């Protein structure tokens, strides 16, 4: 089995509103696959169709070689799911919640609840209730809960949304550890850095459309410019200097009288020449910032929109 998930021409409407518009992609076994997009892009709807919570209006979805409409129960037995906002029973402790969740699965696939808690580093809180956990711990616990049936495929809906940077890194590490044990992971995120750090391949969604599917580096390479050099100078550049930069196959945007963004089409070679030119021309600069192209730029280029309004 090379493909954990195959989605073909999937459509989902809510009345006239098209939540997912004719998308197709596949997830390879063993990879961490990310669906990146802003809120309302259709990520959660797509996941809920995969999870069997929603039925598609058209298209086919195959998970672990099983059709979602024909074998929902078999699929549910073999996948682990973390919902976007899953709380658990208020009046049970962590160990009890995992025990009861385990009882929903066939005996053969049940994981030992205590082992699972150890795996996510929550065993010391086994007798506490969910509400006493911190945000990061809660999220680790919901991931733990999704592992209770020894899943072959793990589906995580925005696993780090609302967490502080340290907790996010913790979760990334946990997801990577889980993936190393051979579990395919599909996750949604609207964090560009998360997609970059965690995902081997990405699908970019916007407004129900699937815009691109590829590895993060290929997605970045698909852009015309590979580096942006932000340059703030003491005196505005003269024409000769601008001309010499243009010869580097660059695009120069003037942000203000003495601030420029120089977008370099070629890779490190032209970056090298540009920097040398700046030195030989004796350009006095206050600030020089070199940023490789990011997924944010890819998203902007592909959709014309910012990925996040409040970054």
């Amino acid at each position, binding site marked *: 089995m090379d493909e954990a998930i195959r989605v073909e021409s999937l459509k989902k409407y809510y009345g006239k509103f098209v939540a997912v518009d004719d998308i197709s992609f596949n997830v390879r076994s063993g990879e961490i696959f990310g669906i990146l997009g802003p809120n309302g892009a259709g990520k959660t709807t797509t996941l809920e169709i995969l999870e069997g919570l929603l039925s598609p209006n058209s298209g086919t979805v195959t998970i672990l070689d099983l059709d979602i409409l024909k074998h929902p129960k078999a699929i*549910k037995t073999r996948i682990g*799911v973390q919902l976007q906002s899953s*709380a658990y029973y208020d009046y*049970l402790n962590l160990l*009890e919640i995992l025990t*009861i969740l385990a009882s*929903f699965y066939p005996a053969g696939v049940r994981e030992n609840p205590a082992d699972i808690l150890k795996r996510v580093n929550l065993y010391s809180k086994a007798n506490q209730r969910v509400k006493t956990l911190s945000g990061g711990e809660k999220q680790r616990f919901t991931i733990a809960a999704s592992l209770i049936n020894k899943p072959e495929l793990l589906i995580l809906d925005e696993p780090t949304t609302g967490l502080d940077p340290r907790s996010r890194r913790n979760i990334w590490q946990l997801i990577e550890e889980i993936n190393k044990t051979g579990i395919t992971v599909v996750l949604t995120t609207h964090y560009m850095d998360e997609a970059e750090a965690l995902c081997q391949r990405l699908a970019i969604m916007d407004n129900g459309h699937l815009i691109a599917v590829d590895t993060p580096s290929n997605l970045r390479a698909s852009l015309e410019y590979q580096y942006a050099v932000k340059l703030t100078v003491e005196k505005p550049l003269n024409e000769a200097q601008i001309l010499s930069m243009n010869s580097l196959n660059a695009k120069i945007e003037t942000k203000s009288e003495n601030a420029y963004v120089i977008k370099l089409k070629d890779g490190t070679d032209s970056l090298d020449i540009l920097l040398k030119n700046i030195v030989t021309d004796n350009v006095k600069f206050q600030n020089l910032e070199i940023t490789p192209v990011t997924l944010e730029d890819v998203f902007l280029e592909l959709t014309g929109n910012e990925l996040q309004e409040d970054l």
Partner: protein
Amino acid sequence: MIQLTLYNLKIMSRNRHSTFWALFFPLLLVVVFGLFQVGNFGGATVTIVNNSTNDESKELIDQISSNNFFEVKQIGSTEEALNQLNNGETEYVLTIPPEFTYNMNEALSLQYTDQDPQQNEITLLMLSNFLDRTNTASPNNNTIQTIEIKKPEATYFDTVLLGLVGLGIMTNSIISIAVKISNYRNQSILKRMLVTPLPIWKFFASEITAHLILAIIQAIIILGVGILLFGASIRGNPAGLLLIILLGSVVFLNIGFIMSAWTNSPSAASGMGNAIALPMIFFSGTFFSATTLPWIMPILSEALPLTPMLSALRDIGINGYPIWAVWQDIAALAAWIVVTSVIAIKVFRFN
């Protein structure tokens, strides 16, 4: 599923809100009514039917009246006095024979119910002493002929106690399930269930089973406190009572499921549950008979599901009717189960 049911019971036992409605609130009412009932504890109400007109009979009555233990009422007709005894308005009926003298041979008659054997003994002893002490010079010939009546009618407390069983089960079933399911939905717990291979009917079956077990425990505790602490007398066939309790419970659980679907938050569900439960408590005759209500209320009362439940509980528990004698109430409850199930299935939503 058994495990899920057990966990549900565990959750309930840890949930103060549900424990309050299930146990504390109805028990509080049992205690209130129980204390109200035994407010004159330590004394006995005696209705005297005096068939004699002489001074000796008056002397006897004065003696009895002057004792703090007795509250004495006089009445002319034996029939009326026995009526009072049956209604629970009086506890003893003492009949003084015509031409009463302290040393006459004719016995006085004392009638009472079997409700409080201890008090019966004390009363009999004290009354015998009055007859004895009055005239120590002459030998005492008076005796008291006692007639113990099997209590045929319920006391008000018995009636209320069964009403409270219904009240407790109703409020708990409606409110706790409405709040719980609403909570589950708000916290995506229902959704979380749906992504597991657990057949969803098992989820509902275990919720219902757990609540039915709770309803039985609730009924046992309420009846137990009423009977053991406050001397209620509930006869009747326990299996019959159990059947009615379970049927009623299912109706109210269904109503709870419906409430949870019609509201968006646990607090709204709680409010709506109360809004349904509280009027029903009064209109279904929990505390007083609905037939005495004005206007179309008595007819309205018949249209509520708590009414047949209470009526069947009382017919079985107090009047000792067999199950088949309350078939109309059972049919009404069954109809309610069908109707509420259909609505519940139709309106229930997971999101």
